[in-house]
């Protein structure tokens, strides 16, 4: 352990893992943490809780140190037990900044930790930096339409970072970080118990393997308008995918969903129709080779990642495009 008072410049990253493997998003957080630790002049410390956290520490060569919390109760992820474990580690480490990914697990952990430790929390961060000794967090809010730059008070803070907002991760790194063992807290009688993992139902189409996707969002307005999208997909030889609201409405199956709680896709062409481009959606498709977006709102965030944009009524543009493509075939 570090002596008290020497950790005030450290940057901690809460590491996620599933099925014994470190989540890719955590390597991304470590890369972001490295930049920040360089600015604060502190160490980059990975925090790992789990039944075999020490083994996982071996994959975290990107960090200067790894704080591990091991306990049999941590055999499977539950928000409660992991929160207790992370909290115990962060109380001991007392870092300047704690970075958490804005993922399902990160949503549980970031706000839970901030309240438990009484530290400020900034969510949906695209950037966290130090200016004149003060922490500045940039958050993407209102569906990505606006960014809020905030000065963070106090000596500690939790920042939940949006995945995909920084440079791609470079992997685990080759360093040999010191492993610091944190005694597991009393995990007591768990009020949340893991039962099982359920794999998603396989769909009729695997959108992650399709070369061309026509992806439909809220702008389509009604299920009755989906044939317009299907006709365009047909003309392009494409599969139809969708943003979350379309799937939540039950208009298309879950297997067609692109984004944070859906699939990550990297097709040769991603044609986004009536999709505004919330951060959760962009996370799943920004790696596409060519992105074309059609959306009524010229200020829609989708145009920040698209290569070509059309700010017009999709009900005018889609039929015209479908006709032209059919004429070519």
């Amino acid at each position: 352990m570090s002596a008290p008072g020497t950790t005030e410049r450290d940057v901690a990253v809460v590491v996620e893992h599933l099925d014994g493997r470190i989540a890719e998003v955590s390597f991304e957080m470590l890369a972001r943490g490295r930049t920040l630790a360089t600015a604060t002049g502190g160490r980059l410390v990975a925090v790992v809780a789990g039944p075999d956290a020490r083994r996982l520490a071996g994959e975290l060569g990107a960090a200067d140190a790894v704080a591990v919390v091991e306990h049999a109760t941590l055999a499977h992820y539950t928000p409660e037990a992991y929160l207790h474990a992370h909290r115990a580690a962060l109380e001991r480490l007392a870092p300047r900044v704690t970075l958490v990914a804005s993922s399902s697990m990160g949503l549980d952990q970031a706000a839970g930790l901030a309240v438990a430790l009484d530290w400020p929390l900034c969510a949906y961060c695209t950037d966290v930096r130090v200016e004149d000794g003060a922490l500045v967090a940039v958050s993407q809010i209102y569906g990505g339409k606006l960014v809020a730059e905030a000065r963070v008070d106090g000596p500690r803070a939790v920042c939940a970072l949006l995945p995909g907002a920084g440079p791609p991760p470079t992997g685990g790194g080759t360093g040999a970080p010191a492993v610091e063992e944190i005694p597991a807290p009393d995990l007591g009688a768990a009020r949340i118990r893991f039962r099982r993992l359920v794999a998603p139902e396989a769909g009729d189409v695997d959108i992650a393997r399709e070369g061309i996707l026509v992806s439909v969002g809220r702008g389509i307005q009604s299920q009755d308008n989906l044939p317009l999208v299907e006709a365009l997909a047909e003309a392009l030889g494409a599969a139809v995918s969708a943003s979350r609201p379309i799937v939540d409405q039950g208009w298309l199956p879950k297997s067609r969903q692109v984004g944070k709680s859906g699939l990550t896709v990297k097709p040769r062409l991603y044609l986004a129709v009536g999709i505004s481009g919330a951060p959760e959606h962009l996370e799943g498709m920004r790696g596409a080779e060519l992105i074309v977006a059609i959306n009524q709102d010229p200020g829609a965030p989708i145009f920040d990642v698209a290569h070509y944009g059309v700010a017009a009524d999709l009900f005018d543009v889609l039929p015209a495009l479908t006709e032209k493509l059919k004429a070519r075939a």
Partner: protein
Amino acid sequence: MDIVVTVKMIPDLVEELEVNAEGTDLERAGLRLRLNEFDEHALEEALCLKDRHQARVTVVALDTGDVDETLYTCLARGADRALKVTGAFAGGVASRAMAAVLARVLDEVPHDLVLAGVQAADDRDGQVGVLLAAMRGVPHVSVVTGVEVLGDRMVLARQEYAGGLQAELEVDLPAVLGVQAARQAPRYAPVSRVRQLMKTATLDAVPAPAVEAAAGSTVTRLARPAGGARAEMLDGSPEEIADRLVAILDERGLVRR
């Protein structure tokens, strides 16, 4: 079973969002608010549980403006009670402060299960459900896509991870769950039914208790994202646009011939 659904009004993202003269907040005059769509899913999941288990559903909202009609709509959809927490909230309220108020309000509202939308477009300082659970010291699960009752004091929550993978978690009550999506699309309440309830039903109101909960950070600048590599925008008639698009796709071998 008593289910409380916390709901909040957020700016309608379909509208143009204006930043105030100071450049630190939305221009709130004339701002159109709507119910956070994740909260609609939280309500729907609560109503599905009510349909099966005779639960009593109470909807709670802070009076951030424009909230009455929304609460009547919640009643029209099937909620049993609507509670409005009054206070100086018209200028917007940070998530941590909202959660602190709700945490105190829940002292007086019977609840076994609290459902909240997993997130909202304006929760810069955290998500209300998780914050609320942490403040009340009860279990919480985020990104829930289905809830089943397992007995008097226990529910099964499905937590969703990337790629659609789900974990089934048994959660002891009382608990707060952050709902990503209900098991079915939110039900529709006919406008006539909402109008009727606006005449016949009453919204309960309680003044907000005084709480201390700073967000711990101060917005110094609110702005549109810096236009980095913006898309090349195509203009013209639908036909002209379609021609350009076909040419662009053709160039890359993406058009079938």
